[in-house]
């Protein structure tokens, strides 16, 4: 493989915009992702994540701005970009009625891979994702985790330089998720690929080299997980009292600290949480519980996106699939 100058970014976007009618889904996104990096793209539902990914994957034209992926323009050199990217979407895009191998062979054909090279690579990939013994089984007999592994194998079949993973583990149990990441890491190491990931799981975000937090179509924060946590800089004091609204208001007023209201509590952000706790009892409102915690990525997310990571998604995809399956009565035409 021809090696490009190593410091040239594999993904770069400048002033990326996309509107749907009056709705401005993406309002000026700038990103640079270096070769071999694992880049996390986080944000609540409707923040513009999927729209941005679709533009980077050539599935959607930007309204304004431009982007290059693997050295090619996503609008003018669409096919060239497609040759160098692998995609795993939230929704599965496998043919359930074909076997695992037939799905991969379809991919090899439609990407125009030489059969002599594709056949051993298919065998090796199936081996790596632990599906070699199931290769001739129809995909509809697979569990959710197995399907995802097959999709990752397929996404990497044509030796892409960038792998886009759009919530790759949504709906999987913790064990399958952990397994999936083991496979992805092993594959990444062998092929030196760049990963562009969206997720709502904090532990997955922690794996990234850098993270961008998107909200309302713009990037609110972009840095390494450690730097982002440091930038929040404050401990979290989570307080539950007899009257959260009143207490939160008084604390905010007297100490000028940042206070975030939550459903059954409120959170005070302060540099030294333990020392702040006694102050909560000065107001005469009975305090029921107090918890002090160091900043996590979730807090970073809360600060820049205004909600918690886990709250942000249940995925319309899951419910749509269920509806389709129910409509077909489990059978497909």
């Amino acid at each position, binding site marked *: *493989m021809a090696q490009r100058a190593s410091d040239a970014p594999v993904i770069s976007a400048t002033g990326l915009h996309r509107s749907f009618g009056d709705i401005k889904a993406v309002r000026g996104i700038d990103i640079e992702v270096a070769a071999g990096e694992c880049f996390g793209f986080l944000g609540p539902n409707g923040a513009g994540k999927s729209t941005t990914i679709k533009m980077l*994957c*050539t*599935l959607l034209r930007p309204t304004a701005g431009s982007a290059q992926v693997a050295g090619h323009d996503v609008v003018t050199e669409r*096919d*060239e970009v*497609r*040759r*160098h*990217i692998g*995609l795993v*979407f939230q*929704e*599965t*895009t*496998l*043919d*359930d*009625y*074909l076997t695992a191998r*037939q799905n991969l062979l*379809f*991919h090899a*054909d*439609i*990407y*125009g*891979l*030489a059969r002599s*090279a*594709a056949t*051993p*690579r298919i065998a*090796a*990939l199936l*081996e*790596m994702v*632990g599906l070699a013994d199931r290769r001739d089984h*129809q995909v509809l007999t697979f569990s959710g985790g197995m399907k995802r592994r097959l999709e990752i194998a*397929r996404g990497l*079949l*044509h*030796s892409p330089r960038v792998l886009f993973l759009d919530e790759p583990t949504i709906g999987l149990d913790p064990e399958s998720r952990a397994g999936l990441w*083991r*496979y992805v890491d*092993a*594959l990444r190491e*062998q*092929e030196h690929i760049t990963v562009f990931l969206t997720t709502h799981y904090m532990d997955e975000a922690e794996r990234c080299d850098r993270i961008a937090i998107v909200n309302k179509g713009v990037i609110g924060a972009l840095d390494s997980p450690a730097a982002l946590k440091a930038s929040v800089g404050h401990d979290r004091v989570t307080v539950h009292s007899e009257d959260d609204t009143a207490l939160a208001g008084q604390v905010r007023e007297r100490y000028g600290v940042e206070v975030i209201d939550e459903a059954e509590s409120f959170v005070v952000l302060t540099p030294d949480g333990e020392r702040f706790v006694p102050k909560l009892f000065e107001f005469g409102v009975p305090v029921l519980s107090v918890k002090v915690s160091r900043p996590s990525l979730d807090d970073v997310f809360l600060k820049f996106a205004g909600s918690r990571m886990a709250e942000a998604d249940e995925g319309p995809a899951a419910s*749509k*699939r269920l509806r*389709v399956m129910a*409509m077909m009565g489990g*059978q*497909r*035409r």
Partner: protein
Amino acid sequence: MSTVELVPVTVAPGGFAHEVRAASVVWKRDLLRFWTDRGRLISSFMQPLLFLFVLGKGLGAALGSGRGGTDYSTFIFPGTLATGVMFTAVFSAISVVWDRELGFLREMLVAPVSRVSIIIGKCFGGASVATLQGTVLLALAGLVHVPYDPLLLLGMFGLLFLTSFAITAFGLLIAIRAETIQTVMPRTQLLLAPLMFLSGALFPTGGSLPMWLRIAVRVNPMSYAVDAMRSVTFHYLPDHGRGAGFATGLTWWGWPVPPWLDVIVVFTSGVVLLSVTCWLFTRDE
């Protein structure tokens, strides 16, 4: 986990050969799907068989058989094949909506190939599946007194493919922009029934029809597919099937439309429909 050595591969640089390969793998998948879906395979024969043997023999008994043994079931044999492949072809084409709903369409759309190749692959897929079904029906010819002449069979095979191709293109046009199968199904039902009834598959299109019906039949491209198949079939019947009094072919103001013109009408309809489908599909690419 075992350590397996991965060898990088290179994606084809594009070009005509790659596009052809892409279209052919889309085509192959449709055939594979049809073959694994035995239920659909069997149920696709139900309607033509009912037409041929229940309606054909039942109504035929009432109408009585003409001289030379050309009875009603023989008369509707070509039309039954044409409408049989019509239903199979349209439902094959509609599978593109399932592909969209269940995600597989995206796997095709993100590949470095033109959407036109995908459409062409889909069109040939539907056409092949329907032709296969039509060929099996063709094998029943003897049961309705149609002789197994090799030229007749060859001619019919060609016409079945041509018809299936045009109808699959029609089905793709209905389905290509649809997001859900619910929006497509009613649309399909609404269009298929008139296409079948107004094709002259079940009755002669000649003199005694009311004027509005004569016009409707002549506007329907399916009529030309039926007419061509009937011309070929009747050519090989004793006395060219004239004895039955059914044998009046399609006419334009009294001028009998020759089979070659039938073929041109069907082919042109197919190409126009396919072009519009491709245009719709690539418009927002």
